[in-house]
């Protein structure tokens, strides 16, 4: 029923008053002639109110004459009449046209570029490729050829296995699949020695192939051959059978030491914010920034931090307009005298951080020793020694 009403509204209808001796006759003739009538109500003995489709109203004149009824329009309803009302208003038309144009324009530009699935170091390169292709936020979608861009990205950026570029509505989505570097292949049938990768004390040895040259408890130097790939005859008294070269295999677990020593500095330069601030504002439209007249930074020494304020559209979509605020804080440098304990603990922290970078990934830390050494001219040093356990087996081809 609702649908029918909607349909009637779209097609347009009129509410009419029919006056005459025989309204019934009028209704009968209308129904015979396929003129749609609805909501017929008797007003009084001689008249009735009814609704009639716009199409039917055009065929009404002969019906009215035949049934000797008079027809008046009470009200015109529906979309066609609504349109007719606005036909004369020029500003309305213009506004509608501008609206359509704006919609078309705003849907034909790239509003957002999304790069997913790539390592941070590739990110900038991909951005550069896009920049070279002259694609940025705000560029027209029309000239963008996703396949070509994807190809370009794969060609220009090393270490990428696959790149996909997709235009989804007003977003450009770049999906990148990082390639995996092929591992160094070591042929099984080639002859190899096991050498020590680091200095250490061997705590455990498992030799699967080859001749062990060292044993548990030995200290070894970096580069020393631990397991030889050359096999000699086990029983030389039976005669000389020569040698055979194999691929030495084994696990050599050794205790290793890492050491780091740093001088203790009693002075520490600390940057203290004075509490004065200055804001520099930028208006951001797409990727271009316009500096707003907010004056120069009035400080000599200062730190800055920037953050973006974005307008948020519906559904959490970030709109490409916003403010960039650059906050400057005035800073004074203060030399601080530390107590001995503070100075040592700071030095220890830095030494630990340096050691952590040097440790190989499969290494197990067993023990940590902190030594405080007093050197010449009264300088203090902090020395940290880490005792670790790791597999030091490395491979090296057997040299003939």
């Amino acid at each position, binding site marked *: 029923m609702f649908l029918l009403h909607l349909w009637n509204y779209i097609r347009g209808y009129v509410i009419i008053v029919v006056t005459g001796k025989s309204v019934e006759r009028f209704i*009968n003739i209308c129904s015979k002639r396929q003129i749609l*009538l609805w909501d017929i109500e*008797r007003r009084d003995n001689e008249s009735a109110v009814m609704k009639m489709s716009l199409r039917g109203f055009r065929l009404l004149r002969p019906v009215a004459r035949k049934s000797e009824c008079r027809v008046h329009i009470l009200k015109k309803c529906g979309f066609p009449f609504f349109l007719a009302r606005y036909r004369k208003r020029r500003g309305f038309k213009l506004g509608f046209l501008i609206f359509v144009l704006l919609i078309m324009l705003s849907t034909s530009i790239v509003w957002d570029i999304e790069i997913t699935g790539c390592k941070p170091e590739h990110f900038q390169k991909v951005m550069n490729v896009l920049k070279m292709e002259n694609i940025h936020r705000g560029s027209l979608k029309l000239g963008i050829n996703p396949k070509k861009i994807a190809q370009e990205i794969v060609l220009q950026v090393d270490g990428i296995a696959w790149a996909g570029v997709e235009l989804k509505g007003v977003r450009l989505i770049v999906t990148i699949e990082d390639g995996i570097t092929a591992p160094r292949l070591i042929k099984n049938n080639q002859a190899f020695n096991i050498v020590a990768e680091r200095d250490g004390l061997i705590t455990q040895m498992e030799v699967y192939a080859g001749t062990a040259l060292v044993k548990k408890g030995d200290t070894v130097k970096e580069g020393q051959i631990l397991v030889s790939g050359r096999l000699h005859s086990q029983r030389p008294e039976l005669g000389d059978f020569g040698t055979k070269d194999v691929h030495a295999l084994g696990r050599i677990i050794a205790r290793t030491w890492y050491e780091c020593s740093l001088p203790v500095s009693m002075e520490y330069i600390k940057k203290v914010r004075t509490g004065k601030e200055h804001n520099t504002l930028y208006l951001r439209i797409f990727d271009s920034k316009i500096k707003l007249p907010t004056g120069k930074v009035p400080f000599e020494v200062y730190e800055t931090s920037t953050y973006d304020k974005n307008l948020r559209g519906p559904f959490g979509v970030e709109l490409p307009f916003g403010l960039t605020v650059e906050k400057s804080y005035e800073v004074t440098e203060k030399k601080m005298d530390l107590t001995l304990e503070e100075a040592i603990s700071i030095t220890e922290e830095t030494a630990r951080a340096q050691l952590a970078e040097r440790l190989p990934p499969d290494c197990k830390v067993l023990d940590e020793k902190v030594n405080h050494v007093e050197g010449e001219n009264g300088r203090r040093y902090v020395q940290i020694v880490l005792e670790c356990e790791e597999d030091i087996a490395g491979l090296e081809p057997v040299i003939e």
Partner: protein
Amino acid sequence: MKKRLFRIKPKTGEESAPSLSEKLARAFEIPGDVIGGSPKVTAIGRGEVLIENFKGILDFKDGMIRINSNNGIIKITGQDLKIREITSEEIIIGGKISNIDYDA
């Protein structure tokens, strides 16, 4: 073989003999409104009466509507009667209906 005698009964008053199409409809168990053009009156609740296969409106007043059909006149009485919709095949009458009368 017996000879059969057919006696034609004179038509008595209003009761008219069923037409051929109605007989056919009955023989094949087809609803009368499909073949014979008999009116089909559907009342939904109290507020709506749908009549298919009607021939025309005879009378339309606030409290009474008379509709012509193949089986005679159907009179519908009630309060605030109105014609919700009318096409050449069907008519929907709305309002508070109290009677649906035939031969009135």
